[in-house]
């Protein structure tokens, strides 16, 4: 589904991704771990088309299409979703209104009929139940004045509504209390299907107790330096990154 080959990317003059390879199959869950500053968020941003990164080499294809040529919204239309490490506040923009506009933009781009207000509300109610979210959040402006944990849960709620084919969760577990962590994990697990893939960027084994990954990768110094099964995460928890020669910012 997603194929990254020799990806190199700069921020300004600084090379952050230095020839990164990663293959994600349909229905798979991949965890990416690695020291602070190793390039995990950079990878997530390059995949979703954020400004300010220059790709200097390699390729990324998503379901056979060259992803790097596409605008961010076109990538979303194809089914890519990024849960932000730092969700952005949109003052005055109603959460429900925002989500409905987003969902309908995606549906429209795919040639599907737009959802009317009633069907959308029904969909929202359904997803709310799964995520145990307080619906008062939906009446508030997007992420505005939300607590750190509420922002993260709102990201997962958006994901549940938009039903992406590939979701990239950038440290969605950071800053969550134990209950919230379980709720987020439930949300992701509820979305798991043979059609859908997930990239989990995380620093903690804890999340992987709830969401069992098929593969675990270590990203360090802009490359995947080790890949393995879920036991690799346990090993990292135990030994840190040092033994892999990936000390840098850790």
């Amino acid at each position, binding site marked *: 589904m997603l194929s990254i080959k020799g990806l190199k990317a700069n921020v300004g003059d600084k090379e952050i991704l230095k020839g990164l390879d990663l293959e994600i199959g349909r229905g798979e869950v991949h965890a990416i771990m690695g020291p602070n500053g190793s390039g995990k968020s950079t990878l997530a941003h390059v995949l*979703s*088309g*954020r*400004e*300010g990164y220059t790709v200097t080499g390699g390729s990324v294809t998503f379901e056979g299409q060259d992803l790097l040529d596409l*605008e*961010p*919204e076109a*990538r*979303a*239309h194809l089914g890519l*979703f*990024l849960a*932000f490490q730092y*969700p*952005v*506040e*949109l*003052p*005055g*923009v*109603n959460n429900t209104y*925002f989500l409905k*506009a*987003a*969902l309908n*933009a*995606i549906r429209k*781009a795919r040639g599907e009929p737009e959802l009317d207000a009633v069907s959308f509300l029904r969909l929202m109610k359904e997803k709310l139940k799964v995520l145990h979210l307080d619906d008062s959040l939906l009446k508030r*402006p997007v992420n505005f004045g939300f607590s750190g944990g509420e922002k993260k849960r709102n990201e997962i709620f*958006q994901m549940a509504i*938009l039903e992406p084919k590939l979701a990239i969760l950038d440290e969605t577990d950071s800053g969550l209390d134990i209950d919230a962590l379980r709720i987020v994990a439930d949300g992701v697990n509820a979305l798991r299907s043979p059609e859908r893939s997930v990239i989990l960027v995380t620093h903690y084994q804890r999340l992987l107790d709830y969401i069992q990954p098929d593969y675990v990768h270590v990203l360090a110094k802009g490359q995947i330096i080790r890949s393995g099964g879920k036991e690799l995460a346990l090993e990292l928890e135990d030994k840190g990154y040092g033994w892999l020669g990936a000390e840098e910012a850790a």
Partner: protein
Amino acid sequence: MSASTAVEAIVESEYEHGFITEIESDTFLPGLDEGVVRAISARKGEPEFLLEYRLKAFRHWQTLATPKWAHVYYPEIDYQAISYFSAPKSTDGPKSLDEIDPALRETYNKLGIPIEEQMALSGIAVDAVFDSVSVATTFRTKLAEAGVIFCAISEAVHDYPDLIKQHLGSVVPHTDNFYAALNAAVFSDGTFVYVPKGVRCPMELSTYFRINARNTGQFERTLIVAEAGSHVSYLEGCTAPMRDENQLHAAVVELIAMDDAEIKYSTVQNWYPGDAQGRGGIYNFVTKRGDCRGARSKISWTQVETGSAITWKYPSCLLRGDDSVGEFYSVAVTKGRQQADTGTKMIHLGRNTRSTIVSKGISAGEGQQTYRGLVRIAAKAQGARNHTQCDSLLIGDRCGAHTFPYIEVKNPSAQMEHEATTSKISDDQLFYCRSRGLTTEDSVSMIVNGFCKQVFNQLPMEFAVEAQKLLSISLEGAVG
């Protein structure tokens, strides 16, 4: 695309409402002297008192110089090059829509304002001002049943001369300022609303203003009187066709609220702002003032200003009655070479008077915007309170926002709050929206509408939708 470049592309979109209706008008030759003032009055068959009023104003105007203090720049206006009267032909008063000039109706249709539909669907009475003379007035009967008068001011002069004589110029005297004096001398037409004691006006009153005849200054005059315990909501909206030469618009609006009365005055203004070089836009020099004359009265101004080359406008409240309330909610957009110097004045004279000011300024391109607000608490205004919130949103880095708050407090019991912010649409916000599938245009529109939310919430429902659409059109071209 970064936030600023994306937005700039959008901002360069052309004005959508640019077209000129071919309609025969009967227009005076350019120029202004006492003879022209007399001719205007004669053409309208006005009573003597009004001619006297016009002449007095004209003589005073001749002694005045153009005000220079506003933060706007434009070539000197030649008042002798302007024509001061223009009326569409055959204005004997239509009995039904069928009698309206098809070209005129076509204009409304192009603007997406089908009068028929409005009448049928929204129950809004429409007093459509086409150039200087009202040619369509609807729902008069229903209003008459309630005792509400809603008509062209030129008609009111004939039908209710006593009310006009009593109130005209009582809030904005002809000596008030240069443009108010000019308006008093040559005002063409406008709207008169009178709501009797204890009456709640059964519908929103609405007027669409248009400027159409080439090179004809337009001098609207609006007078709204709400007697004790009455309530009225008035909507004013305008769009204008594209033109080559600058057009002067110097309107005067006077509102009077007696004891416990409430007037809500909402404006959506979308006049031609000029081309990318700033040529050909409307000059909008307006004097709007509300007089909270009675105790516990309330006057609320809400405005959404997206058009005009130059805007000079300060809807104000004189809070004379004890416990009276003044409000000003404003969204102003300046883009391209547009300049706006706008704000409000809240003059607290009565005890326990309260005022709220919420101003949202959006500047894009090379737009220059100034908020100028005065809050004056008189010595007798014991317990007066004001809250001012003044937010600017800058799009790109060639535009400007300037804030000039003037505060004069003569009573120590006054409570004053002032908040001001300046922000930009960040790349983070834009990317966040786009990563959810929204186009850049939709993202900008959503963020800007969010910024204006507090003001849009004040507008009557159907007007709020219109305002959002207008904002999207003015910032986005393709959308809407």
